[in-house]
């Protein structure tokens, strides 16, 4: 099978399915244990659980976050970063926590169309703003062109930085960026990949830019 054949046959890209079918039921149950009941209900589309569960926290402030086009009415402790709110309260775990200090880019999301680091943002600062996470870009059946290009170009190894890389790459499409690889590398320098998939990441981005 040639590389081109492989690229044309990304049959089942779902990481979650891979985990579930590779005998990691123990890991899966551990993960489930760390998602609070309130977050589960938020994920299922009812935010009442999140609101009531946090209503007793002293100093919690009610806000409305609009994430991937869906409004979430929440009560948030002021200390909560946007990253922790997205992952733990709203239970959208596609956005990753890497360094938690603005040094790795794994937590990149879009706020009002611009890419930011959700770990250096307080959730409360985003009341009423439009937030997009990797879950809002596309689905396994209808991927964003950048997601499809990362898959086709094998632009990852472990995958932990990938959602941040893709969020940065999608934002880059609308930013002033020269046509060459060097310009792409410069504007992607805030996203670290410890596996070192950089060459394929640049290729994936350039493939999309050529087709836009």
């Amino acid at each position, binding site marked *: 099978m040639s590389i081109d054949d492989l690229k044309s046959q990304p049959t089942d890209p779902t990481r979650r399915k891979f985990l579930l079918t590779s005998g990691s039921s123990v890991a899966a149950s551990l993960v489930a244990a760390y998602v609070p009941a309130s977050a589960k209900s938020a994920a299922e589309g009812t935010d009442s659980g999140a609101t009531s569960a946090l209503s007793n926290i002293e100093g919690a402030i009610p806000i409305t976050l609009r994430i991937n086009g869906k409004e979430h009415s929440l009560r948030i*402790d002021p200390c909560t970063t946007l990253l922790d709110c997205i992952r733990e309260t709203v239970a959208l775990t596609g956005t990753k926590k890497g360094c938690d200090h603005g040094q790795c880019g794994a937590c990149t999301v879009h706020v009002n169309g611009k890419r*930011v680091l959700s770990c250096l943002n*307080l959730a409360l600062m985003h009341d009423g703003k439009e937030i997009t996470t990797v879950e809002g870009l596309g689905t396994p059946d209808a991927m964003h062109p950048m997601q499809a290009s990362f898959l086709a170009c094998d632009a990852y190894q472990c995958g932990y930085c990938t959602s941040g890389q893709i969020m940065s790459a999608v934002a880059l499409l609308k930013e002033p960026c020269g046509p060459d690889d060097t310009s792409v590398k410069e*504007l992607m320098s*805030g996203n670290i990949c410890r596996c070192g998939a950089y060459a394929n990441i640049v290729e994936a981005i350039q493939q999309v830019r050529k087709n836009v």
Partner: protein
Amino acid sequence: MHTFEFIRPTDPGSAIAAAAQSKTAQQGADVRFMGGGTTLIDLMKLNVETPDRVLDINRLPLDKIEATPDGGLKIGATVRNSDLAYHPKVQKDYAVLSQAILNGASAQIRNMATVGGNLLQRTRCVYFRDTAMSCNKREPGTGCPAITGHNRTLAILGSSEHCIATNPSDMCVAMAALEATIHVQGAKGSRSIPFGDFHLLPGSTPQRETVLEPGDLITHVTLPPPIVGSRQMYLKLRDRASYEFALASAAVVLTIASGRITRARVALGGVGTKPWRSPEAEGALTGKPANDATFRQAAEAALRNAKPQSENKFKIELAKRCLAHALKMASMS
């Protein structure tokens, strides 16, 4: 993270009144303004900053870039670094500022960080950032382990026996060379601070980094009218090609007529305890022919008073070459 009360003032007056209740506007302030959060939230997670009250100033009307009546530029305190760097007038007339900002941080951080916040960016000294260590800046009187410890990236200009922490900002280096003015509204009214007077040398009080007092809100920065025909350059040298703080950087604004330098403004980054304007280099350039010998002499003058630490003697020659090369690139632009 230390718990805090989150307040969202709707007008500058109430923000200033709330901040005026702080015991200090310097290290350890109990009330903090929050702009982009890129420095403050980071330091709050490390418990280096532990404010009781955080004032979110992002809803205040401080986010505009406007022309001033004299032909200069007024930049609101909450203008994002990326919006400033890509502003057409900044790219055309204040290219050194655009270059400096785009050489700093990452695209994500530039989309978040504000101009006011960048003026107050804190040092990356590892001892300052680690509450398990002593630090005269964080806890006055406890000592400076950097002087006998890891100091490769720390300052060679403006240091004292109490502190050798480097100012990490790129934007500030360009603003020093452009002779910006910082405008502050405080409990006692408004005032304008020349850029060079805003940051303080550490001396025996490294916990005091600026002239700001409790309640002082940076409202905007102004740039003087552009110098017609000036040649500008920001050159940054660092351990990796991008997303890294400067080991040495130089911002230069030159005017050259008939091969001679008629006006020079020079500032250095990555080497000073504050954004380092160099009148010594400017004096060595003005009136001289624009050639390599002049540029090297200016670099020698700029670093004449440099005081290296155990691990960073290399920065003296690095900064000299950085400045000389920036001057050469500017002269050829």
